[in-house]
């Protein structure tokens, strides 16, 4: 179990929305634009890093029977902190994400990492895990946001990217568009994995 592996596994091997298929609610709901995806991803990363660190530090102190309750209190505190900080420094983004910021509390990725990883490992490895998974989640949301924004509004991060006569598919900005984009990305990732496995097997 190397530190490097714990950090990088979040980028491909178990990248949250695609491999673990966790945290789909924010993934589908806020990725109408690339910037929203980044903001949601970073807010989640913030919570994930600190909750992993704290859960790991307190892992011997928290009795096993009340661990879930303790984890949730810790996570909820960091979510409210993230919410207040976003309001203070990134108000328009906070407005755009709306209810999905407080809903980070119930994001399965965070409780999942606390329960499955941070409560069993030392703080440094847990920090690496939180950062890796968080950034993996951010990148996933960014990619999904880019695709939906490009097809749905013809822009990426607000910059015009399509030719002038391009008719945006507003379908991509609606919930069904999110599922379609997610499905195509999942299929692509599986294709690449399959190809890699085949190549690995031939060796």
């Amino acid at each position: 179990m190397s530190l490097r592996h714990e950090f990088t596994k979040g980028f491909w091997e178990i990248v949250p929305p695609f491999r673990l298929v966790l945290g789909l609610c924010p993934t589908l709901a806020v990725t109408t634009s690339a910037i929203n995806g980044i903001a949601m991803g970073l807010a989640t990363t913030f919570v994930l890093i600190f909750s992993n660190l704290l859960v790991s530090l307190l892992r011997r102190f928290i009795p096993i029977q009340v661990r879930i309750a303790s984890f949730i209190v810790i996570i909820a505190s960091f979510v409210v902190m993230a919410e207040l900080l976003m309001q203070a420094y990134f108000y328009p983004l906070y407005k755009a994400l709306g209810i999905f910021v407080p809903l980070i509390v119930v994001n399965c990725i965070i409780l999942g990492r606390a329960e499955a990883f941070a409560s069993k490992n030392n703080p440094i490895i847990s920090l690496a895990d939180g950062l890796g998974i968080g950034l993996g989640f951010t990148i996933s949301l960014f990619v999904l946001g880019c695709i939906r924004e490009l097809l749905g509004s013809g822009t990426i991060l607000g910059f015009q990217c399509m030719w002038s006569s391009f008719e945006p598919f507003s379908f991509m900005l609606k919930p069904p568009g999110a599922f379609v984009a997610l499905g195509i990305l999942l299929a692509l990732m599986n294709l690449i994995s399959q190809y890699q496995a085949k190549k690995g097997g031939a060796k």
Partner: protein
Amino acid sequence: MGGATVRDIIRMIVVLTLIGAASGLSLSLTHRVTKERIEVQIIKFVQEPAVKEVLTGYDNDPILDRKTIVVGTDERGNAIELIIFPAKKQGETFAVALEGKGKGFGGSIGVMVGVGKDGTLLDISITSHSETPGVGSRVTEASFTDEFKDLSIEEELEVDGVSGATYSSKGVMGAVNQAIGYVAKFREEIF
């Protein structure tokens, strides 16, 4: 809980209490640190665009010149404050913008109301609402808000509500009436 001794139970209670207390403490600290900045941000992103919409022809900065007056106390005895955005020309206040709140279908509706010194309603703009999108939310459209233009605050408001959105229309009316009420009651302080 099989096999939990009294010791274990006490330990659980102590740990949960400590975690809860630490959480409360850190949140109240964060709240205190960010409070002022959040207020400034709300003024900048929510109230400022609305103020600029309802006031015209001023040569000052209504946001910078804003003043806060106390309009009453809530049930806990805390002062209810109201922010007044004055529009001035050559140092003379000729109109103000202030926010009123009304109860709509989905919750509180905030309306920025511009009132001239002579008692005419200049314009209104919805700052916040949680009305049904596409139904109640139509009260934010100019076709409805324009009806309030040039009415007198001395007389009872007469506007046609948005059909199908009676509660939302009433909520906006309530908010406008509240703002007008403040102007009537605190005229001296406001102008």
